[in-house]
């Protein structure tokens, strides 16, 4: 059996099948997340752990927890996302799949966006499912938990997209966990301010449409600009392997 290559040489115009490549990247990320459950569970446990520190550390009175609850959950979610970001590209960089992925004939920024959204679905949505539970733990009234979950729903993709820029830049750095947090946390401040701002405004009976509009604007900006920076960062990290 002459080991002839299975497929003839064909000079292709350029990579077609953007949808197929996107679906493949999305499905692959979910498959890996499902197979490596630990990488999804750890941030969740960390999230609950951080939230339960505040009543212990400060005070368990209902009155304090009701005021500070939204902020506590937001900061804990932010830190949990930062934790899971560190592993975002690391395994693929180590085993060499990252350079194959960068070399695939598809627009890298688009693929990066698909990949980050897959990670959002795989590891951040479970986080959001925990928010109502933690809200009750912190004696938050039901509607306020609803608003809190809504702001996190809009804010967490922004946190993930911006954090992925840092992950792409530091993927070739050895123990880059702390470095990633140092680089990206200043960029999280606006999202944190308007996320918690919406909940406090709702608590005082004020309308929150303004806050949600700004969160939406940040989300749109992140979706458009962040993938470009992520792609540039990945090309840089993969350069000399």
């Amino acid at each position, binding site marked *: 059996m002459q080991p002839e290559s299975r497929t*003839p040489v064909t000079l292709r*115009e350029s990579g*077609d099948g953007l949808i197929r*490549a996107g679906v*493949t990247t999305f499905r692959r990320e979910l*498959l890996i997340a499902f197979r490596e459950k630990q990488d999804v569970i750890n941030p969740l446990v960390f999230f609950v752990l951080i939230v339960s520190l505040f009543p212990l550390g400060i005070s368990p009175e209902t009155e304090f927890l009701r005021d500070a609850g939204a902020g506590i959950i937001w900061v804990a979610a932010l830190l949990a996302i930062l934790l899971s970001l560190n592993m975002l590209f690391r395994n693929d960089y180590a*085993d*060499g799949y990252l350079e194959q992925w960068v070399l695939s004939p598809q627009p890298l920024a688009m693929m990066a966006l698909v990949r980050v959204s897959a990670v959002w679905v795989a590891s951040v949505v479970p986080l959001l499912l925990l928010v109502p539970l933690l809200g009750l733990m912190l004696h938050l009234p039901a509607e306020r938990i609803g608003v809190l979950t809504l702001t996190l729903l809009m804010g967490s993709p922004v946190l993930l997209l911006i954090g992925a820029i840092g992950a792409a830049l530091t993927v070739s750095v050895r123990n880059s966990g702390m470095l990633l947090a140092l680089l990206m946390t200043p960029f999280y401040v606006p999202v944190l301010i308007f996320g918690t701002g919406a909940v406090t405004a709702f608590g005082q009976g004020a309308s929150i449409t303004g806050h949600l509009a700004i969160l939406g604007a940040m989300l749109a900006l992140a979706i458009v600009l962040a993938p470009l920076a992520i792609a540039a960062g990945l090309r840089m990290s993969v*350069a000399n392997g």
Partner: protein
Amino acid sequence: MSTTLLEARQLYCERDDRVLFSGLDLSVGSGDIVRIAGPNGAGKTTLLRVLAGLNLSFEGGLSWYGYPLHQQRDWYQANMLFLGHRAGITASLTPLENLRCWVDMRRPHREELLWEALADVGLEGYEDIPSAHLSAGQQRRVALARLYLSTEPVWLLDEAFTAIDQGAVKVLESLISSRAAQGGAVVLSTHHRLQLDECRVLELGGSLGFAT
């Protein structure tokens, strides 16, 4: 003369204070096999990564099919397969899934082709166990299975023959020559003594690097 697929003009590259190569010209046409030879650390890997468009810190011109490469990145990457030091196999996925993810990013494929490619590299029965349980040599074979599936005319193989046993060496050599025979072009670096007669050698390190 065969159509030139990949061409490098006056390549210059330095890394941590050493000039790896300067003034390097290389023209690879269809049907060519070029072996990059030179001692370790002479810049073989760097040159291959420059040709693959991964490494951007070099000076000089690179063109694909006559067009400047940095303007034709997608078109070039659709017609080029790069195999680096690391196999690029994800441990938590099975060989089948690894191959499927790789091919799906490039073109539609028929499922049985994957099974046949894995059979060709001698991995029958291992298709659907997680790659983590495979040995390094077997993982390398999964990467070689891509060559069976590859319709890309240009192959860039870095240390192609490392960590594979004698049987696989024969297979790889015939694959390379058949790719060149079909009008493709292969640029590879290896320490293994290659039995391919019609292959040009590009010497790196020491003398001025140009295609002998």
